[in-house]
Structures are given as C-alpha cells and as structure tokens.
C-alpha cells in the first residue's frame, strides 16, 4: 500500500503552514529519519522527517505553497516496486482545526511528527470559540480608524512604542530575545532594540524577578516577562515583598516602576501546573496594580499605561487569546486609564461582570440571552486592583441583578469580592442574590472531557442569568 504523507501539525497551535522547500524529489529512496521538507509555521521553520521507508512516488504539493492545511496529502511514498500511478493527485481536504494557543516551551512542546489532535471538544476550545463569537469593540471615539491585530501583536506594539519613547524601558525574561518569545509576544524587539534592552535570562524566575525589581528601584523601567504566570510562583516573593511593599515601607522614598507580564489562566490540555488564574492572588496585595484585559485594544492601551506607571504592575495576559484578532485603534499613542472598568455591552435586565477571557464567555452568553428576550449588560473589569467599584455598582443599580463570570477558582476569588461589594454597597439595588459562574473547584484535569467539565461555559452563564431574572 502506498503511504500518504500528510501536512503535519508541527505545533499544537498550527492550523496551516507553508511548504517552504522539498529536500527530496520524486524517485528518491527515503528511510526513517530522512528529512523530507522544510515547513514554515506561524512561529518557526521546522523540518519534516520521514517515518517510513520507501520511494517518493509523487509530490502533490509543490514547494513554495502557502496555506497548506494540516492533514493535506502532500506526497505519496511507495514501497519497492509499487505502482502509484492510479493514486489520486487531488489533495484530500483536511479538517479545519481551530488554533489553540499552547506553551511553546520545551516542557510541553510535542515531538514534531507526533501530531497531537487539536482538542476541538476541549474546554479551552470552547473558551476560544466563545471569544471568537463575541469580540469586544475597542473603546475609541466614533469614526476612529482601526486595524485588525492579534492580541500578541498588540502587546508587542505596546512594548515597542514605549521602548522607543523611553530609554529606561527594557524587556527581560526567558526566551524573549533570540527565540523571539516563547509565545512570540516579543517578536522583533531584539532586532529593533538590541540585546542591551531585550535580554534573555537563564531559567531563574526568582532571580530575574529580583534583578528586575532591583533595577526598577535603581531608576529603570523593566518589563519582566514570565513564560507563564505559573512559573512566577517561584518569584512571587519579589513581586509582593520587594516590589509591592517597598514604597510603603520606605515612607514613599523607594519607587518600583516595574511591569511583570505574561500569560495567565487556563491553557489547553496542559494539566494543572500550567493552568491557573492568579488574578485573585495578586489582587489581594495592596501596593500592586493588577490588570487583566480581554481584547487586543484594551491590552495595548493598558500595557502602555502600565509601563508608564510609577507603581509595580502585574499584567495578566490570556494565553488562549494570543492568536485571536481584534480591532485595534490606529492611533499614535493609544493609552487607556488604569482602574477603569468598561461596559462592553449595554443591557437592562441583568449585569454580567467578568474580566480576561471570561468576558468572551459573558458576551457570548449575552447574545444567547438576547435570543431568549433577556437583555444583559456586560461589565469588563479590565483592572482587578484598584477595582472600579463605581462602574459595577452603577450597572447593578440599573439592572438590579448580577452574575459574576470568572475563569478561575471560586474560593476567595474576584467573584467573591464583587459579591461582597454588591452586598456591602449595593444591597438596596439587588432584586435577587448575586450568583457566580466559575471554574470547578479542582486542579485543572488533563483529559479533554474532564477539562471541559472544569471550565466555565456560556450555557452556565445563561442559566445563572435566567435564575437571577426568575425566568
């Protein structure tokens, strides 16, 4: 039987790629390990190796072809003496797989050729799908021109713009320079700013968080990237004890203008140690600013504000959203105020309060609720500390009903805080108890079905909203 060689998924995020170069030609004998072709993904150029022995009978996709879907038959390998003339030359259409962001670090990168199936049915996929169905329009005056950008591009632009403006700003972290970022958020920064300002560190989170904090105390403006906030637990002492408290302990003498940033929250199928929302952890700490944006425009405007702030900022990005595209205002200097929530969707029947990827779920739920005649308002907190209570309470006063949506654990969470605020300061406006929709109170499981059960879903938000509106 001839063997079909299919376009491989060379990273868990890959949906399609460019067949850059064939390294074999028709008639060549290949054995296991022979490098057949070079394939470009959105992140890198990778080699494609043969697994089986045989002769290259037919090359179906010529080199230089762009947008070759994963799973497309690109060549036929024949065993000795086999005739493949009858084989169809038409490439089989591949199933369209959703791109799901996964860590690019070596700890979780799958072996090329051992293509993981994109977990179409996973909980993370559902979160991304909700986000895709429910993009958040940027906050700009009517008529502002916008450009379509992924979250990662917007974050990169925010850093580059601030680095152009202020010599003191530099980026430090694991794989931020030569590798161009584990998630490619720092792509291109090394080329523009050089290795003095874009600095690869050893794998040493506690150490480089301290180095960054010390540099900030000495007058620089560091941006410290954590490959993920899960690894920042090794560094949390410097974030809290050194960065957050020193201004207070010094009676206002010691500034610490630093940004700790990186992906946060549940990722896709990476297990419990790589999937956690640290929003509530950092939001607990006086002396820190904590920002957790949803869309690319907010991410850009708030990251620029964070870099300019004289206070230490924890900037929580969402790794499932890095590849999602949003409209970003085409303005020279788009900066948003820290500590201001926004009404992402206006409504009158119930308020859905959320942040980060939960906003996508809330907006998706709001659309479903609209079909059932319930007009939901969605409040995107954007900044978790200081929390914009006024916007939350104002919306509550308008709708009298509230559901908090949080991609994170329920206990001692941002939703706990919002519920407490509603009780303490909005009690008279409440026509129903505030409910919350959060992840299940368990470490995030690996199995696709269990992961799906653990994460928040729009359907649960719809159900909660119906409960508080007594429908």
């Amino acid at each position, binding site marked *: 039987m001839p063997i079909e060689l299919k376009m491989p998924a060379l990273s868990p995020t890959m949906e399609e790629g460019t067949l850059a170069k064939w390294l074999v030609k028709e008639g060549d004998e290949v054995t296991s390990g022979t490098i057949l072709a070079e394939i470009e993904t959105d992140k890198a150029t990778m080699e494609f190796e043969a697994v089986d022995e045989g002769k290259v009978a037919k090359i179906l996709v010529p080199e230089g072809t762009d947008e070759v879907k994963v799973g497309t038959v690109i060549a036929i390998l024949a065993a000795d003496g086999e005739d493949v003339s009858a084989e169809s030359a038409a490439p089989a259409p591949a199933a369209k797989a959703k791109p799901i962001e996964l860590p690019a670090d070596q700890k979780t990168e799958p072996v090329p050729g051992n293509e993981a199936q994109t977990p179409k049915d996973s909980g993370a996929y559902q979160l991304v799908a909700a986000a895709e169905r429910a993009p958040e329009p940027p906050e700009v005056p009517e008529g502002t021109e916008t450009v379509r950008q992924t979250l990662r591009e917007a974050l990169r632009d925010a850093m580059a713009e601030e680095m152009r403006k202020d010599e003191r700003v*530099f980026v430090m972290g694991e794989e931020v320079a030569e590798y161009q970022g584990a998630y490619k958020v720092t792509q291109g920064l090394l080329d523009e700013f050089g290795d*003095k300002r874009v600095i690869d*560190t*050893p794998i*040493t989170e*506690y*150490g*480089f*968080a*301290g*180095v*960054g*904090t*010390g*540099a*900030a*105390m*000495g*007058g*620089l403006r560091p941006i410290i990237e954590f490959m993920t906030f899960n690894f920042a637990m090794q560094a949390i*002492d*410097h974030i809290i*004890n*050194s960065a957050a408290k*020193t*201004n*207070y*302990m*010094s*009676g*206002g*003498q*010691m*500034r610490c203008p630093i940004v700790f940033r990186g992906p946060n929250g549940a990722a896709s199928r990476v297990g419990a140690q790589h999937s956690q929302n640290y929003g509530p952890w950092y939001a607990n700490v*006086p*002396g820190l*600013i904590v920002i957790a944006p949803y869309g690319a425009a907010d991410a850009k405007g708030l990251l620029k504000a964070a870099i300019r*702030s*004289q*206070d230490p900022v924890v900037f929580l990005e969402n790794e499932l959203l890095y590849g999602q595209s949003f409209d970003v205002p085409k303005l020279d200097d788009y900066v948003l*105020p*820290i*500590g201001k929530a926004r009404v992402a969707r206006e409504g009158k029947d119930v308020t859905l309060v959320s942040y980060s990827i939960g906003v996508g779920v809330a907006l998706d739920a709001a659309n479903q609720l609209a079909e059932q005649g319930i007009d939901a308002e969605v409040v995107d907190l954007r*900044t978790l500390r*200081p929390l914009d209570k006024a916007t939350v309470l104002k919306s509550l006063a308008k709708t009298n009903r509230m559901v908090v949506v949080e991609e994170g654990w329920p206990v001692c969470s941002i939703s706990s805080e919002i519920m407490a605020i509603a009780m303490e300061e909005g009690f008279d406006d409440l026509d129903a108890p505030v409910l919350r929709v959060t992840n299940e109170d368990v470490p995030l499981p690996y199995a696709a079905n269990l992961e799906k059960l653990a994460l928040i879903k729009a359907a649960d938000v719809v159900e909660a909203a119906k409960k508080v509106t007594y429908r």
Partner: protein
Amino acid sequence: MAKAATKRASAAAPPTPNRERPPEPKRYEATKEELLEFYRQMLLIRRFEERAGQLYGLGLIGGFCHLYIGQEAVAVGLQSAMKPGHDSVITGYRDHGHMLAYGIDPKVIMAELTGREAGISRGKGGSMHMFSTEHKFYGGHGIVGAQVSLGTGLAFGHKYSGDGGICLAYFGDGAANQGQVYESFNMAQLWNLPIIFVIENNQYAMGTSVNRASAEDQLYKRGESFRIPGIQVDGMDVLAVRGAAETVVDWVRSGKGPVLMELKTYRYRGHSMSDPAKYRSREEVQAVREKSDPIEAAKRDLEKLGVSEDELKQLDKEIRAIVAESADFAEQSPEPEPSELYTDVLVETY
C-alpha cells in the same frame, strides 16, 4: 571518613586559577586622620546599637531589632572605599550599621526604630526597612537573601545607564544558603555586572552555626562554579577590610565583573533582641570580645600612631552626645498621623 578523603583530595590538587583573579589584598595603610575617622564611625555604630538595645528593653522599640555590635569593622572598612550617592549599597535586616557607615543621620534612624513620624521611613518601615535614595542606600530587606537579587538588579542598572557606579550587596552566612543567591551569582557573572557580593560571616544564622548549615563552610568559595573570584577577609580588622575593599572596588569598577568577599566576623549580641543565644557559650563570646574586638584593635593602632588617651576619651564623649541626642529625638518625636496609614501605598492615583 568521607571528610578525610575530601581533605586529601583537595590537598592533592590545589585549584589552579585558569583566569585572572584580583590581586592579593594588602592591609590598608591609614593615616592617623583616616584611622581616627574609621574608629569614630565604628564607635558611633557601637554606641548607637547599645542605646538601641537599651530603648528596646524600655519598650520604645518594638518588633525585631538586629544589632550590629561586633561587626562594625565590616561596614566601615568596606563603605569607606565607596562613594555615597554614586555607588549603591543594599543589605538585609541588620542594617543600622550600614546606614551609619554611609553617613546617614543617626537621628532619623533612631526615630525610625521608635516608629516616629520623623523616622527615615516615616515610621512605616522599622528597624529592618530603612532606605535613603539620596545616599543610594537601598535598604533594609526582611526576606533573607532577597537583597542579593535586588542588588544584582541595582548593578544591572549601573551598567545599563553607564553611570560608573557599582553595587555592594551584603548578606549573611545564613542567606548564603538561599537559592536566589546562586541565581544572582549566575546572572551577575554572565552579564559581567559591577557588583561586590559580601558575605558577613558572623558564624551563626540565627542559632545555627555555619558548620551545621553549610556543606562548604569556606563561604568565599561559593562563587567558584560561577567563575566569580572569592576573597576571605578578617572582618574584625578595619584596615584589612579597607585594604580588601580597595582591591575589590578597583577590580569591579574597571569592568572585570563581580567579586565575592567573605568577611569573617562575629556578633556579640543575639540574632535579634529576643534571642537568648543559648547556642553558644558565654566564654566563646567573651573570648572574641577580648582577643578580636575591632574597636579595641583600632584603638591600639591609634595609640601607636601617637593619639593620646585624652583625645580618644574626648571622641567617645562626642559620640555619646550624638547618640544621646538621637535617642532624645527618637523619644520625643511624635508618632505618625493616623492619616499616614493610607499614604505611600501607591505612587499615583487611579
């Protein structure tokens, strides 16, 4: 058995330096005036700390209070070779001596110890958390070892901005076992940062002696696997310390990268005021006081240089007056206004 074998092995193969090392430091040859100044500073620290201990006993100082008595020659010898306001200094929680040695006003330090509005941190830091950005003294840190990474960051800043400054980062023999110290060593050498790592080895990490806590008790060797040269110095001799500081400051300022100094010293008091120090004998402490006291040693050297007993008595009187004045100031200054509770949490308003 294993220990004996290790010793033989090291005796058989002495480490051959495969790279340039700082030269062997020489004991500093101080003029009479210079030595008198070192003596004055050491005495100020000693008297200041004695008074702080007293105020603690009277309940005027609360919480943790770690005294520097016995270790004075270290801060004075090292910092006399640095430029305040240009070179940065950072340390842990046993920080009073380092501040005094950098020329910071004893009054605002003592007022911080008593938690008063006039304290250098406006009463919000306490004994362990004092800073003077004007002097480039960066604290005053309570988490053991944190100042080593932070100091590496300060050194990174000196290099980044090209201001010619260097950083002196102090830590104890206890902190020398923290992981982040080695993370910092690695980056400091990798990036060739202008930093002097100083281990103040006062023999006890709280109640645990170096030998009970450190597999390699020759702490100056702890940088070797990062190619950081190490130097061991008699921390009870201010001129030996100053001499070593000259050598090391020259090395680091000329761009040759970090150096690790181990200063062998001794604290006479407990780890903090609440430490009864049962882990060592009274005789041990007494023996060090009698044989190795840094202030008594400097006094003998001064007498050899022709400084009279009367001159030294006069100096002691002046210092007692400064300390008494700072104690009065610290007792009489008001506590912070209640509204101060909410200031300095964040710099900006959002």
